[in-house]
């Protein structure tokens, strides 16, 4: 479980066991994401959820490894596949499920839904349904942090597919020129919709970033400790004015592009899926490492799993019963009132 990056981060096994609390929080957060997605998927399959949604399952170590290196006052921007980022940055199940179901108690009063879920109380500036659409926003949040001298760092999450959007390079150029505290976190899960990454990306993603004068790293996105360690280092450097940085995180999405994408053998094989799920699952592997290092017992982990599952179920039940926003809300919030 080591970062494949140019950085000299220590491997996880070299680390002391003193970080038990942090480890358990990471484990729990990954389990929470998985549980959230399992429930969201069920809601879709049982026709209880309006619209479509994109599952984050499989990529948990990315969101958690990164967000655990951030403070609430740091910013993230998220994507159409954004539940994982939202959970990892500190959101609660209840408001999240309410949002997915279009209920008034949702983070966005039901107006945003899965693709626009935001949680500004924890610095999540929102999911985005425009691929690459948040790259400018994250960079602007970093500009703001620098301008207002808040010390905050911004992480821009985006997929391999989003690297085809020119906006990213415009933003990276300015971030690099102005040394903004922003980390471009490219979650390379091998696909954009139904297309393999090498069919849509020429050259090398990290070399591109370097061409814009930025240090760039590649890290195993299934290894939460490697991700976390690298991010901690980069966040610290960002705060010292040494940003921006680009990180390519190699990961995999377990489900289809969206919940409705069931028959997908025409673009990727069952064997490939099995390979990742069986051998590279970020939660299983981290659990194995935790028990192997005797940091916790298998029972401890099972208890976390059970607790999280119950939480998720309770939140779903709550959300299903919660009320929809009143009809009068439809014209509210088009414009902010003078404050």
């Amino acid at each position, binding site marked *: 479980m080591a970062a494949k990056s140019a950085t000299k981060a220590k491997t996880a096994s070299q680390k002391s066991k003193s970080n038990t609390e942090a480890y358990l929080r990471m484990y729990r957060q990954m389990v929470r994401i998985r549980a959230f997605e399992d429930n969201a998927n069920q809601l879709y399959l049982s026709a209880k959820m309006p619209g479509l949604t994109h599952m984050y399952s499989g990529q948990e170590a990315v969101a958690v490894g990164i967000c655990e290196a951030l403070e609430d006052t740091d910013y993230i921007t998220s994507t159409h596949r954004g539940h994982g980022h939202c959970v990892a940055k500190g959101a609660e199940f209840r408001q999240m499920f309410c949002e997915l179901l279009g209920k008034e108690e949702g983070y966005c009063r039901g107006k945003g839904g899965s693709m626009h879920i935001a949680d500004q109380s924890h610095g999540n500036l929102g999911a985005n349904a425009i691929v690459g*659409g948040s790259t400018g926003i994250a960079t602007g949040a970093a500009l703001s942090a620098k301008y207002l001298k808040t010390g905050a760092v911004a992480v821009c999450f985006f997929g391999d597919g989003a690297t085809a959007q020119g906006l990213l390079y415009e933003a990276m150029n300015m971030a690099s020129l102005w040394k903004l505290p922003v980390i471009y976190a490219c979650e390379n899960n091998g696909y954009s919709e139904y297309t393999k990454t090498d069919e*849509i990306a020429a050259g090398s993603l990290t070399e591109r970033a370097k061409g814009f004068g930025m240090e760039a790293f590649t890290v195993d996105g299934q290894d939460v400790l490697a991700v976390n360690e690298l991010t901690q280092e980069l966040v610290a450097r960002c705060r010292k004015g040494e940003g921006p940085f680009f990180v390519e995180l190699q990961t995999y999405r377990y489900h289809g592009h969206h919940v409705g994408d069931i028959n997908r053998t*025409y673009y990727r094989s069952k064997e490939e899926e099995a390979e990742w799920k069986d051998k590279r699952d970020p939660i299983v592997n981290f659990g194995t490492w935790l028990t192997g290092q005797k940091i916790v017992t298998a029972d401890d982990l099972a208890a976390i799993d059970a607790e999280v599952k119950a939480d998720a179920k309770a939140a779903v039940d709550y959300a299903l019963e919660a009320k929809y926003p009143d009809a009068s809300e439809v014209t509210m919030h088009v414009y902010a009132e003078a404050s």
Partner: protein
Amino acid sequence: MRQITLSQAVNEAIAEEMRRDPKIFLIGEDVAEAGTPFKVLSGLVEEFGTERVIDTPISEPGFMGMAVGAAMTGSRPIVDLMFGDFLFLVMDQLCNQAAKTHYMSGGKLKVPLVLRTNLGATRRSAAQHSQSLHALVAHIPGLKVALPSSAYEAKGLLKTAIRDDNPVVIFEDKLMYNDKAPVPEEEYLLPFGQAAVLREGRDVTLVATSSMVQVCQKAAELLETQGISAEVIDPRTIVPLDEDTIVGSAKKTGRAVVVDEGHQSYGVTAEIAARIADKAFYHLDAPVQRIGAMDVPVPFSPALEDLTVPTPETVAERAQQLCKGEI
């Protein structure tokens, strides 16, 4: 006559035209093996190969610009823009380049391309995947804008668009892809700038575009039960616009309601209503009414989203008030 879905109609139109003219190619995201997320283009790559059915990276401005360059140099691209909301990404290449090139070059360069995209809310897709943005492109001289309202129009208008030597933007209603309508086996084209009178009536004219045509036809049925005879007109293309048919109908009935799924303010209903109010002024018994989508970003919640778009009931109610002299 056989019935096919709007999706099949689009597919047939493209296949027929690609067989006819080897200069035509398709370009867009996941248009090949995947046949688009809506599966509208399924089968085309198998027939025409990946040279003519080109999967792109997620680079809307880029492939839009490339289509402009390809169209200027002898090819005839059909661009697939997955959601109408992504128009905002291609506006520069579409409106500053494609739309103006013929004029700026004094008629020397042509840009024969088709931009296929869609419109329509109520799919619970929220604010960035639900917009109906046809008014924006209609405002830009040099672009033609077609709004098919059924499989029949979709096929006939798309074939005309493909043969047009200008950039044409055609919006399909994404809620209609699986709706069937009678479509002839034989080849046919529908001319631009000719509205269809879908239902004749005496008391009120309902001008409806795209998704709103069905809404207005249902409204007309409701009105009939109330003894009100509504004429339903589908302009089919808003650029060029068949003002004569629309104004002629309004002159006849003396009342008009214009219904469109774009936002109401500064949208399509304004243009059509303003023209009727001007040209039929001396024949109107009541003010021309407009019903567009609410001037709000499309909310996700089903409880809110459905409120934002015109329904048969809201249209019928307004038409009724109009006919009763209540407006």
